Every structure is written in structure tokens, then in C-alpha cells.
């Protein structure tokens, strides 16, 4: 049953560009990017119990690094991409070292403050980041000589990366290391007593999460061919977190579904009215009050109850 569902889903995703219009194909690509991002934040929120409000930092760092190297130094994509990943992951190492001095709300505040520092810098340091104009004039790479400029080609490219990323992250949380991470979330003192280095487990997970955030950031900048400081804003971090929580933190499917819901909501609402922030805030409040463990666990419970009857 489960395998059948997977195959059906895979066929549907692979066949979608054959039937959907460009608008929907592009929407699909954006959902894949948002899914990678949400899944990477979920490593911390869902499995590590570490709620970060600074996940947009990875999008911004990877995107700005790759854009800057491409525009100012004229590097080719095959150099900018790995460099952007390395730079972002290194900074994730530094930020993790700072933020993990605290846990709980202290961690949340520090990640928020750090990402706001980056956001402010992106606005102010116009010589490097282009300030409020952002950086434009970017191009998409051509992996193995295949152009991904067309919507459908980019769709398959981001789908491939998303499947790889989510598979890797699912393996990560199901590995013994993932078990240690979950242990550090539930019983950090016992994990310490058992000889696990809880801090190191958390830090490595933070860095790993930052790495996949950077991958999403690269896809983000390839998709838009443009980067602006709003990508680093608190709203942007909050959208990712809302996706994770709305879908169901600590499950593999939850954040993907949540990210898709947030993205669709944002696209449809923005098409009709300009009140996205208002709606984002309201959805946040409603989800926390009425569906605190998310849509996917909620539906699973409902499905199990229905099967029993």
C-alpha cells in the first residue's frame, strides 16, 4: 500500500509538467525548494527540539554568496555553487556554536538576532549586496550541459535535488545519530549520562540543517535569478517555521506538506490582495491554538480512527 502510494506520487510528480501550464510548473518548483528548506529546519525543530527563527539566513547567505561570486568575480557556476555551500555551512558552524550556548527560548532569540543582523547587513552593505536593489543579472547553471532555463527543465532539476535532499535527511533522522538527536531532545541529561556529547550532537545537526538550507538557497537564487534582502527577513524565517509546524514537526512528510500549503496560500493570497503578512500572522495564531501538532499528524490520527471503525 505504502509503496504503491509512493510510486503513484512519483509518477504524478514526474508527469505533472506534461499536463500543467507554466504557471503551475513554476509553482511546483517553488514548492520543492520550500520543501527542502522546511525539511532542513525540521531536523532542528522536530527532531532536536531546537526552534530556530533564523532559518532564512541560509537561503540568504547561499544566494548572496553565489550571486556575488558570479557577478563580481565572474566565477562559473560549478565554482560558485560549492563555494556558496561551503561558506554557508562554515557560517552555520559559527552561528551554531553561538546559538547552542543556549537551548529553548534563548536559542530562538539568538537565532532570530543573528539572522536579523544578516538581514540588516544585506540592506546596508550596498557595495556587496546591492542594498535595497538586490543583486540581479544572474543566470541558471547548466548541469552536465543541460539547460534548465525552461520551467519544465527547472522543475525536474529541483525535483531531483528535493528527492535527494529529503531522502538524505530522512536517512539522517533514522540513523543512530538521528536517534541520539531525538534522545537529546527528550532526555538531554540522560543522554549526557549515557556518554553522548549532547552539545556536539546538536551542533552537528545544526550544521547539517544549515547545509541543506544552503542547498535550498542555491535553488532559490537559480529560480528567481535575483536576490533581495527580504529573502533574509523575519517574515521569511517565519514562513519556513510555519510550514514545519503547520505540517507537523518531527515527521518526514509533515513539513513538506506544510511548506506546500504555506506557499500555495501565499501565491493565491498575493494574487488577490496585499495582506499576506496579516494572513501569515493569523494562520500562525490559529495553528498554534487549534492544531498545535500540525496537519499531517492530525490527519493520521483521524485516518487511524476511521480505519478502526
Amino acid at each position: 500500500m505504502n509503496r504503491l502510494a509512493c510510486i503513484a506520487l512519483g509518477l504524478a510528480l514526474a508527469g505533472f509538467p506534461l499536463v500543467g501550464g507554466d504557471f503551475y510548473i513554476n509553482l511546483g518548483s517553488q514548492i520543492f525548494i520550500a520543501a527542502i528548506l522546511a525539511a532542513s529546519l525540521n531536523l532542528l525543530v522536530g527532531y532536536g527540539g531546537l526552534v530556530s527563527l533564523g532559518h532564512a539566513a541560509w537561503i540568504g547567505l547561499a544566494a548572496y554568496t553565489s550571486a556575488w561570486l558570479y557577478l563580481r568575480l565572474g566565477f562559473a557556476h560549478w565554482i560558485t555553487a560549492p563555494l556558496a555551500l561551503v561558506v554557508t555551512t562554515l557560517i552555520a558552524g559559527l552561528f551554531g556554536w553561538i546559538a547552542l550556548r543556549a537551548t529553548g527560548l534563548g536559542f530562538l532569540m539568538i537565532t532570530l538576532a543573528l539572522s536579523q543582523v544578516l538581514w540588516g547587513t544585506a540592506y546596508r552593505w550596498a557595495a556587496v549586496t546591492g542594498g535595497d536593489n538586490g543583486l540581479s543579472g544572474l543566470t541558471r547553471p547548466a548541469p552536465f550541459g543541460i539547460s534548465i532555463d525552461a520551467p519544465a527543465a527547472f522543475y525536474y532539476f529541483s525535483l531531483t535535488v528535493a528527492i535527494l535532499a529529503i531522502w538524505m535527511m530522512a536517512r539522517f533522522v533514522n540513523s543512530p545519530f538521528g536517534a541520539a538527536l531525538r534522545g537529546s531532545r527528550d532526555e538531554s541529561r540522560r543522554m549526557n549520562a549515557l556518554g553522548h556529547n549532547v552539545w556536539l550532537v546538536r551542533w552537528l545537526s545544526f550544521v547539517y540543517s544549515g547545509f541543506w538550507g544552503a542547498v535550498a538557497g542555491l535553488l532559490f537564487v537559480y529560480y528567481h535569478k535575483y536576490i533581495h534582502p527580504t529573502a533574509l527577513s523575519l517574515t521569511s524565517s517565519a514562513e519556513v517555521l510555519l510550514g514545519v509546524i503547520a505540517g507537523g514537526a518531527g515527521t518526514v512528510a509533515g513539513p513538506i506538506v506544510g511548506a506546500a500549503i504555506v506557499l500555495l496560500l501565499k501565491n493565491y493570497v498575493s494574487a488577490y490582495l496585499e495582506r499576506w503578512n496579516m494572513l501569515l500572522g493569523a494562520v500562525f495564531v490559529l495553528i498554534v491554538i487549534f492544531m498545535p501538532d500540525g496537519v499531517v499528524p492530525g490527519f493520521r490520527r483521524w485516518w487511524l480512527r476511521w480505519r478502526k471503525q
Partner: protein
Amino acid sequence: MQFWIVQTLNSLALGGLLFLLAAGFSLIFGLMRIANLTHGSLFMLGAYLGVTALKLVPNLWLAALLGGLVVAAFGGLVERFILRPLAGNALGQVLVTLGISFIVADTCLIVWGGDPIPIAAPASLQRPLVVGNIAFPAYRLAVLGIAIVTAIALHLLMERTRLGAMIRAGVDDMQMARAVGIPVSRLFTTVFCLGAALAGAGGVIGGPIMSAYPGLDTDMLPLALIVVILGGVGSLLGAFVGSFITAAIYTFGSALLPDLAYVILFLPMIFVIAFRPRGLFGRKSA
């Protein structure tokens, strides 16, 4: 010389404003164990309410009082009806305050529009104070004075009154405070209203310096966070010292290295977190 004096005064005035903002944030965090992410929005709401209040009353201080009261009432409602049902779920409470901050920001945008609205300083303070050949902006001195008076008042409130003793007890050990019969629930609402009032009034008082504009909330919130990370949670002295350190770094950073002002802000934070994770004057770690 003029440059250094003006920038020092700027930083002292900003420090005063930050103190009005961060004192409430820190007390709420210390007592209720939640990071109130609406705090920046309360500051901005205060600034916009000040704009409207100044159309009704001619006096900035009166407008600040009105703004503070309205924002306090709003904060009280949020605490009673939205945060209270989520008691015990600190993460949920923080996420709700984040959601509310977006709603408040967007509402301000609808009501007051997207253009920055300047707020005039009181006429008597508009002319700079000239000593010798150096001019001091009088309004900034007044803001500094207000912040110091507020700090002393808060200090007396915390150290010399029954309410302050109860708040301190709640910050140090919530369960014991409950057990000895302190009405912790009422205390939460009181502190939340107090913090909101300070933030709202701070927004109005800050108006002549910063004016009211969309994005004021996200400009102020990180500064408040950094103040509390530096100074320590639940400590007035920490909020006071942290505010002036943060403001000095931010002001001189913006003046000397405008591009990297935000990066420079990050340095003291790293030092404090590395060597004293609970902040300079924190009673316990965040």
C-alpha cells in the same frame, strides 16, 4: 569634537529608548519565561498612536501617556485572552506573539499608510542647547532624562514595593512564589501591561528621533533581543547597561562604518554568549 559629542548624545538617547523597550521585554521574559516577539510591534504601534494622539492633544508627553495606556490595554488583552489559554506551552506562546506582531504590523500599514510620518519634538526642546561653540540637541537630552527617571522609578518599584518583591520572587522561583500565595496570574497581566506601556510610550517618545514608519518594529526588535542577550534576562540593571552598550555600538558603528553597523552589533553578543551565557547581570540563563 562636535561629531563625537553629537554621536555620544545620539547613542545616549537611543540607549534611553532601548531601555524603555528592553526593560519590559526583559521583565516579561524573566517572569513569564516567554520571549514576547510583539514587543517591537508594540513600540511601532505606540509611535503611530502618538501620531494620531498629537492631532487630538497638543502635547507630546500627553500623547506618550495616551499611547502608553492604549498599548498597555492592548497588551493586557493579548495576555489575558490569547497567551493565558496557552499557559505552560512556552513555544506556542512565543509563536503566537510572532503571529500577532505580523498582524499588528500589517494593521498599522493599513491604518497609517506606508510613508514615514515624522513626529515633531515639543517646541520648547526644538532649539539646540548651545554651550560655548558646541550645540547639544535638547530633545535627545530630554529623552535620556526620561529614561533615567524611568529606570529609577522601575528600580524603586522592583526593590521597594510589595509588587516588586512579588515580581522578583516570580522571576527567581515561580513555583515557590505560587506556593506562598503570590497571585502569579494577576502578576503576569500586570507585568505584561507594564512592559507594553513602556514600549508604547517609548515609541511615542522616540517619534521625534526615529519617526513612525513601517519596519520600525523589525528594526527595534533585534536591538531589544541583543540588549537582553547582553544584559541578562529579568534584570533591570542588565537591561539598562545592555541598552547603552548596544546603542553606543550601533550609533558609532552606523556613523563610522555605515555598511557594517549590524555586523559590529554582533560582536559584543558573541563575547557575552561565549564567556557569560546568562548575560552580564542575568540571574539565570535564558
